[in-house]
């Protein structure tokens, strides 16, 4: 699905990613954990194509094509989805309208006909129910006046609508209460198949009780420094990150 090799990136002359390697195969869920400032959100931004970052080395292969060579919308159309840590409010732009435009531009990219209004509305009903998002919210301005939990559910709703190949959830659990967390996780689990993959970026083990990862990676100082199974998350929760730092120092 995606193969990241020796990825290096900087912003304002500050090196953030310093040779990151990661491979994700279809059907897998990978969790990326790490202390603040390790580069977790940078990784998400770089993969989504945010222009503030400069790629200084390495490569990213996404389903056989060079991801770094594509602009943001091309990546999205090829099936990459980023659930934002801080979803932006866009007053005046309706959620539904923009999603319909997005879906149709993705379909056009794949040389398919636009979706019919009827099919689209049926899809909206189905997918908004999945994340228990009030259909009124679905048709309001993008994230405007949404609570923190509603914004995150809206991200998963959009993910459900767009049916990506690879979803990157950037700290989707931050600011969620336990009910919202369960709803979000349920959405992610329901959408999981052996054809798509998910990268969950998180600070806390908590989310991983609900979205069970196949692999857990520790990102520290711009590199993946440790990889393990889901039990690694529990160990990190218990012992913090210091022991990893010590391990590295030795």
């Amino acid at each position: 699905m995606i193969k990241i090799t020796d990825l290096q990136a900087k912003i304002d002359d500050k090196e953030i990613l310093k040779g990151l390697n990661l491979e994700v195969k279809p059907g897998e869920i990978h969790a990326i954990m790490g202390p603040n400032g390790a580069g977790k959100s940078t990784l998400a931004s770089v993969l989504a194509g945010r222009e503030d970052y400069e790629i200084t080395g390495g490569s990213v292969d996404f389903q056989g094509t060079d991801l770094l060579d594509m602009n943001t919308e091309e990546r999205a159309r090829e099936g990459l989805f980023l659930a934002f840590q801080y979803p932006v409010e866009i007053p005046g732009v309706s959620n539904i309208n923009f999603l319909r435009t997005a879906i149709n531009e993705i379909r056009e990219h794949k040389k398919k006909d636009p979706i019919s209004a009827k099919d689209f509305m049926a899809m909206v009903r189905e997918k908004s129910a999945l994340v228990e998002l009030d259909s009124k919210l679905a048709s309001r301005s993008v994230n405007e006046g949404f609570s923190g939990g509603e914004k995150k559910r809206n991200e998963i709703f959009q993910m459900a609508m767009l049916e990506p190949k690879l979803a990157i959830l950037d700290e989707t659990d931050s600011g969620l209460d336990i009910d919202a967390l369960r709803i979000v996780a349920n959405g992610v689990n329901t959408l999981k198949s052996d054809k798509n993959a998910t990268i969950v970026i998180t600070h806390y083990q908590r989310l991983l009780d609900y979205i069970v990862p196949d692999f857990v990676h520790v990102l520290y100082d711009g590199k993946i420094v440790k990889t393990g199974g889901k039990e690694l998350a529990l160990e990190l929760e218990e012992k913090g990150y210091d022991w990893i730092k010590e391990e590295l120092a030795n």
Partner: protein
Amino acid sequence: MAVIEQKKTGLNSSTIWNQLSETELRIDSQDKEMALRVLNNTPMPTTRTEAWKYTRVSKLGKIEFSNQGAQLTSIDKYIIDESGTRLVFINGHLSEEFSSEEFQDELNITLLSQGEELAPSILNLDDEIFHSLNTAFLTDGVQIEIADNANVERTIQIIHILKGESVISNFKTIIKAGKSSQANIIQGFFAEGEGKSNFCNSTSEIFVGENAALTVDKVQYENESTFHISTEQVQQEKNSVFTINTSTLNGGLVRNNINIDVNGENCVSHMNGVYLLKNKQHVDNHTVMNHKVAHCDSHELYKGVIDDKATAVFNGKVYVRPDAQKINAFQSNGNVLLSDDASVYSKPELEIYADDVKCSHGSTTGQLDEEAIFYLQARGLSKKSAHKLMVSAFIGEALDMTKNENARAFIDNLLLERFGWDF
């Protein structure tokens, strides 16, 4: 041709009226005398003139304009409201062929060239070179009288089309809305083809009678080499509602002056505008809201999107006179710049002489939110679509003020045609 001889000794060296003859219309003799005096003794405004600080008209003064009629084979594309009646003027001359033959009984419509001598104008002529030009060289005009209590069901459209090159139309519209009447009048301004350096110099005198409700929708879609200067001078009597929606969608140099005097209590005034500019267009909206008496509301909303090297100017003045207590006056101007070379000059001015009033004004100028655009692109939208959505979200509120659905559809269509934006 007395004017031309006088001109040579006057201060005004512009060539605007070298080729024009004085109006043959029966305008008020004092007005005419005044207009000629102003033309001869007033230099063209420069950017040192406060009211023209950001709008250069020196180019206008170097053109020798002419005024002749022209023929068109069709005006279908200029019909804003299919269900309405219409008066069509080409270069300021009535086109009987394209105008409606009949109007509602309660309307009294007179061509100024065929009517009685005009009453003294309510326009200020002193120092106002374009008002004076309009007065002294008036091509023609129309007076629409709406009878008391009339509910005018079909929109009345006044469609102005400029055709030719260096053609001027000095046009006057007089609207008298009788007591408790209700009407929607549309003024459409167009230019046929790529005709160069045409000039529409239009004035309107609008009287809104007691308890009347009058809406004027002004749609401007001339071409990028057209000059357009127009003034709406409005008098509102008590308990009346007046709304003017100005949509400026094309034009080279456009200056709109709207001056509303509220003479009676319990009036509501709405002034809304949208302006969308690209290339080197220059659009200037100057408004004056004059609250002379108590217990009135005014709402003003102007929004613009400026691309390329275009320039927008907004100057909104609100006066609340000493006896005008309990006034609610709101004004808002918002601008979005789509390019680094686009400019906006926005100047709200409030002068309040009463102490029990509620007034607010706001002016914003910014760019589209880059973070929002990235968000939309991350969902698969092209940059162009993302911009389109953001622009429509920004300007939608002001576009929605045009309540006439046919006019709105017409405007949407022009936006699609000119900017590729569908709303």
